[in-house]
């Protein structure tokens, strides 16, 4: 028919425009301000939401189609992994501890990201960003669930995976990632986009999902790797959304620049601090290593982030000042964090250990400026003490940073032998932070950070014992009671890897696989 011949098939851009643009309207029976009550309070000025560019032009039917394809593949791998006892194929059972930190510290955040993007997807007055945010919200629930489903099989065989929902709200080090997301979700929708859409997704998740997951593959964990890479494929869309959002704000009004810059400074630093945990996972918790934390940082943060900041310079965005400290810290933080978890292993939900000689040699080679000078003597001493039956467990509670909530373990930028102390005063009360970056964040919004639920302070206030515990009773052991409140089973979930139930089970099960019995 003639009609058919003349009717040109719509191109991707055109089709997408019809499918989304124009779905919304200027409300008149209710004011736009009432329909979108969160659009203005942060001070961001938007004049024309139609200027929003949607780089990935996914309609819902295409979304369902491609995502279902990914899910089919992913669950086929997970089923095979479970059926074939894939967990026994990992290089070394120490590796499994990285997964515990992943499930307790990261998967719950994916869930909060889902809720936060649902909120952003409701709150922006433009249809383009709303649809992109909602798809991201959907992806984030995917990530939470696929991670839980992948690690469910590990939970059946190893300790420490068993109560992640309970732990994320309580355990001291999990308050680091939790408070990061609480901070972002309690902010307005535009700041949320900088915090999660830009800093977390664009600048930081590559570091988590790409080199770490490649490391998981290297350590024989195909289940987790598939989940990680499959999640990261959604991140490509998320990063693009984050970048688009930042450009959009900057292009809409010059008054947005200082606000956006302040958020970039804040969230680049918040994110960098949280990544300390990932640095430690890469350098210490992967028995076979693909690259060091420092190398990953250089590739995915310095080069990639550098390209990004070069690009944003045309809007007047400056590289956050705090990143000069991050460039110094990259040589230290993984070691400092591991030293922390090693000594507080009594209060952690995973096992720790001291590196072998061979591993220390690898660390010296990767960190020629710092490892032998500052960290090897300490680690060698601890290992020798452990061999003598004197494994060091620190049982005195540490001082925490009021903002990032990490114990005050970071050193001065110009002196790696000196802990960095920063202090602020607000309404007659003292507050301590671990760095100029965190102090700056506190000083900008003290009314927010004075509310922080700091685990150490909460323990001392008596809020972290099981219900009905009497702290005045004879023989009251506060640390034992805190562990019970955490649902960390002492002697099973915590302490050194050496002698752990995980170690014994893995060895026994592997033995069954390699011997004829």
């Amino acid at each position: 028919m003639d009609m058919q011949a003349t009717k040109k098939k719509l191109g991707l851009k055109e089709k997408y425009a019809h499918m989304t643009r124009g779905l919304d309207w200027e409300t008149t029976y209710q004011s736009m301000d009432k329909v979108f009550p969160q659009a203005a309070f942060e001070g961001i000025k938007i004049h024309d939401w139609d200027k929003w560019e949607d780089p990935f032009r996914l309609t819902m039917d295409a979304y369902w189609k491609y995502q279902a394809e990914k899910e089919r593949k992913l669950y086929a791998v997970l089923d095979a992994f479970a059926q074939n006892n894939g967990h026994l194929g990992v290089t070394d059972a120490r590796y499994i501890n990285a997964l515990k930190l992943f499930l307790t510290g990261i998967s719950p955040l994916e869930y909060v990201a889902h809720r936060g993007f649902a909120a952003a997807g409701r709150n922006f007055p433009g249809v383009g960003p709303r649809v992109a945010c909602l798809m991201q919200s959907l992806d984030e629930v995917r990530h939470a669930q696929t991670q839980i489903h992948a690690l469910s099989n590990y939970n059946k065989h190893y300790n420490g995976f068993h109560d992640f929902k309970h732990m994320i709200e309580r355990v001291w080090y999990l308050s680091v990632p939790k408070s990061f997301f609480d901070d972002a979700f309690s902010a307005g929708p535009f700041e949320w986009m900088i915090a999660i859409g830009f800093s977390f997704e664009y600048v930081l998740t590559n570091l988590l999902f790409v080199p770490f997951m490649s490391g998981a593959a290297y350590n024989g964990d195909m289940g987790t790797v598939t989940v990680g890479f499959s999640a990261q494929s959604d991140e490509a869309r998320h990063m693009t959304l984050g970048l688009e959002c930042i450009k959009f704000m900057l292009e809409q009004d010059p008054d947005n620049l200082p606000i956006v810059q302040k958020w970039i400074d804040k969230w680049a630093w918040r994110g960098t601090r949280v990544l300390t945990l990932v640095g430690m996972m890469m350098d210490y918790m992967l028995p076979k290593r693909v690259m060091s934390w420092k190398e990953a940082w250089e590739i995915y943060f310095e080069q990639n982030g550098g390209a990004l900041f070069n690009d944003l310079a045309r809007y007047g965005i400056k590289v956050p000042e705090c990143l000069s400290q991050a460039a110094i810290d990259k040589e230290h933080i993984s070691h400092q964090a591991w030293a922390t978890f090693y000594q507080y292993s009594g209060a952690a939900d995973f096992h720790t250990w001291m590196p072998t000689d061979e591993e220390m040699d690898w660390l010296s080679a990767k960190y020629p400026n710092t490892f032998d000078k500052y960290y090897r003597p300490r680690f060698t001493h601890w290992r020798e003490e452990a061999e003598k039956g004197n494994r060091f467990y620190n049982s005195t509670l540490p001082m925490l940073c009021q903002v990032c909530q990490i114990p005050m373990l970071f050193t001065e930028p110009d002196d790696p032998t000196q802990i960095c102390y920063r202090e602020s005063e607000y309404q007659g009360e003292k507050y301590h932070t671990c760095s100029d970056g965190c102090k700056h964040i506190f000083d900008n919004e003290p009314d927010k950070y004075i509310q922080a639920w700091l685990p150490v302070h909460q323990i001392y206030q008596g809020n972290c014992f099981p219900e009905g515990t009497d702290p005045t009773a004879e023989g009251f052991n506060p640390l034992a009671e805190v562990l019970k409140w955490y649902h960390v089973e002492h002697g099973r979930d915590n302490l050194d890897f050496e002698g752990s139930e995980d170690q014994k089970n893995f060895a026994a099960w592997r033995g069954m696989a390699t011997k004829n019995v």
Partner: protein
Amino acid sequence: MAVKALKHYQFPAADTQDKFHGNQLVYVGWDKHLFFCAPFAFCLPPNTRFGDLCDKVLPQAFSAHPEWSQVDLSKAVWKKSGQPWQPDMNKTLAELGIGHKEALRFETPGLNGIQGSCS
């Protein structure tokens, strides 16, 4: 700077002294001894004698370090809120003006950690 919020936004601080059942927080760090990854947080009555802090509380926290046996805290070089400061062992925290959440640090000249690595 004030927080920008949709409605009135003011909440009490989570860690004011009244929430610690008559005690206060004091932080103590041993400089150049990163064996202990971070300064310690202690929860003590404000009438704790500084000498008791040094003799009874700190040893429990620091004694795992091989150099601790050589430490004489009366000769240590102290800082309070980062400023040089000299404690009086016979006075209480309150009398010394050590308020809630005060950060104290001490140096032990001559002791430089495991193999001089400041560990």
